[in-house]
């Protein structure tokens, strides 16, 4: 990741006048191990800070006065926006960047997902894209100098009927062709991996097999947000929380600035919409219509118990996914709620359905107690693939429509959107995900997405 040669070629899209205004210290900071301003985290620094009389830990990121203008304004301080800001500064030397969030960093979908990472999708476009993300996630702790707690437990997608078993075989073959470790295994092998799973044939939805994806796993999603925020901050990016955008100035089909809720205005030629849940509202401000519908997705977590679940278990038929965190809690997720809404209230319907489905898979959990449930907003697109890239409005970019698969794509979308913004051309990995695909009828039907019935 840190070879210096990467910075050169992709910068050419920025004209020289623009380059002149960029913060030149970014590349220098990166060569000094990535983080110039905040202290590096290490076992030694932990020891030193534990000594009596030692100084306080420095803040992970700073607060800044809002500038009147930025080269790039990113709306949405979740993993996508923060990663894009980081890669703009780290890979392309563009650090005069502001990340604006109306709440706090990582408070939307980036802090509400179930933190599952995998790349065993169904379309070749999807598999290549998510596999690059997994690769970035694998080296993320080293790159950001932040412990993101990635555990590669392995990922099982259960098949309860012949048609989903057929889809699993299909996915396994597409995955193998793209070099992704993925195979279909039978109930005996599943039982060995997850002994608590009821693999008997006497259940209502007997398990016929599973798509096994060893590189998949879980990560600590807050740490990913904070790690990107800290690394972007160290490279000179400004992070502005509690800063709501209420308007985008467009003149002659070109972005000129953004209006804030407190009446201030930021002049900028480039705006990235990296929001989830609010993406339609932000695009409306620039006059860009989108094929997005917003639905809540609910999740729940149990009390912590001793480790017994070594893999992430997903069942499309039963609409449930289960994993055990490092703290021992079981995290459950389901499919999106049955109707569109911006409400993030939990519902009893969800908990009842979820509990029934989980017990169908693992009857031994019947005495466990749920601690809490919550919901996040999913921007669903007609083909279960994201919308990334430029729009008819010059300087207005989209990184939206992340439905139920946004968190696992955070690093790669940051990387590819940074490249797209820096060069002015959609990066190769995201060329299939443009907004214009709906006009051309070239949809990328991603039935390997979570919460999609097969």
């Amino acid at each position: 990741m840190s070879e210096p040669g990467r910075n050169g070629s992709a910068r050419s899209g920025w004209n020289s006048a623009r380059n002149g205004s960029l913060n030149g210290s970014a590349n220098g900071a990166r060569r000094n191990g990535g983080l110039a301003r905040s202290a590096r985290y290490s076992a030694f620094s932990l020891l030193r800070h534990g000594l009596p009389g030692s100084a306080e830990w420095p803040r992970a990121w700073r607060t800044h006065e809002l500038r009147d203008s930025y080269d790039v304004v990113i709306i949405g301080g979740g993993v996508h926006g923060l990663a894009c800001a980081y890669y703009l500064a780290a890979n392309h030397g563009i650090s005069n960047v502001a990340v604006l969030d109306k709440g706090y960093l990582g408070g939307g979908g980036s802090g509400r997902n179930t933190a599952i990472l995998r790349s065993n999708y169904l379309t070749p476009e999807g598999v290549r894209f998510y596999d690059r993300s997994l690769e970035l996630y694998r080296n993320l702790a080293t790159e950001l100098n932040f412990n993101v707690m990635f555990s590669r437990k392995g990922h099982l997608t259960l098949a309860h009927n012949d048609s989903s078993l057929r889809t699993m075989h299909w996915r396994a073959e597409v995955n193998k062709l793209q070099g992704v470790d993925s195979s279909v295994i039978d109930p005996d092998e599943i039982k060995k991996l997850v002994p608590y799973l009821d693999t008997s044939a006497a259940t209502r939805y007997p398990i016929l097999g599973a798509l096994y994806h060893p590189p998949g796993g879980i990560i600590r999603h807050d740490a990913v947000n904070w790690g990107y925020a800290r690394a972007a901050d160290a490279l000179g990016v400004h992070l502005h929380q509690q800063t709501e955008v209420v308007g985008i100035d467009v003149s002659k089909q070109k972005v000129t600035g953004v209006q804030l809720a407190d009446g201030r205005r930021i002049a900028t030629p480039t705006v990235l919409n990296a929001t989830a849940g609010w993406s339609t509202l932000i695009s409306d401000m620039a006059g860009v219509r989108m094929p997005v519908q917003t639905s809540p997705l609910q999740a729940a977590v149990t009390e912590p118990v001793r480790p017994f679940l070594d893999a992430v278990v997903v069942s499309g038929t039963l609409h449930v996914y289960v994993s055990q965190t490092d703290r021992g809690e079981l995290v459950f997720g389901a499919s999106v709620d049955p109707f569109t809404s911006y409400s993030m209230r939990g519902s009893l319907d969800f908990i009842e359905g979820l509990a029934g489905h989980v017990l169908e898979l693992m009857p031994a959990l019947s005495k466990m107690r749920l601690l809490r449930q919550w919901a996040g907003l999913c921007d669903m697109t007609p083909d279960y693939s994201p919308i990334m890239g430029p729009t008819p409005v010059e300087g207005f970019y989209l990184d939206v429509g992340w439905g139920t698969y946004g968190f696992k794509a955070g690093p790669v979308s940051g990387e590819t959107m940074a490249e797209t913004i820096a060069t002015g051309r959609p990066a190769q990995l995201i060329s299939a995900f443009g907004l214009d695909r709906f006009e051309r009828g070239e949809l990328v039907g991603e039935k390997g997405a979570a919460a999609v019935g097969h």
Partner: protein
Amino acid sequence: MIELPCPWCGPRNVAEFRHVGEATPRPDPATASPEEWRGYLYLRRNARGWTEETWYHSAGCRRFLRLTRDTVSNQIQPPGAPS
């Protein structure tokens, strides 16, 4: 949990219904341009607030109905009320 006012069955639990989606007027296929047709197929207002939408009472009278719902609070507007 919300209740929807079915004009034929009265107020019923939302679990009995299927959400068809935002009411989108269908252009005439004979005269519509590709852009208009694409808009009809894919583009949605996705409003945060009052939205007119179509529901299907699948576990009841199996008829389609129109209603206006606030997508933030999930409140339903009584028929005939000004939006």
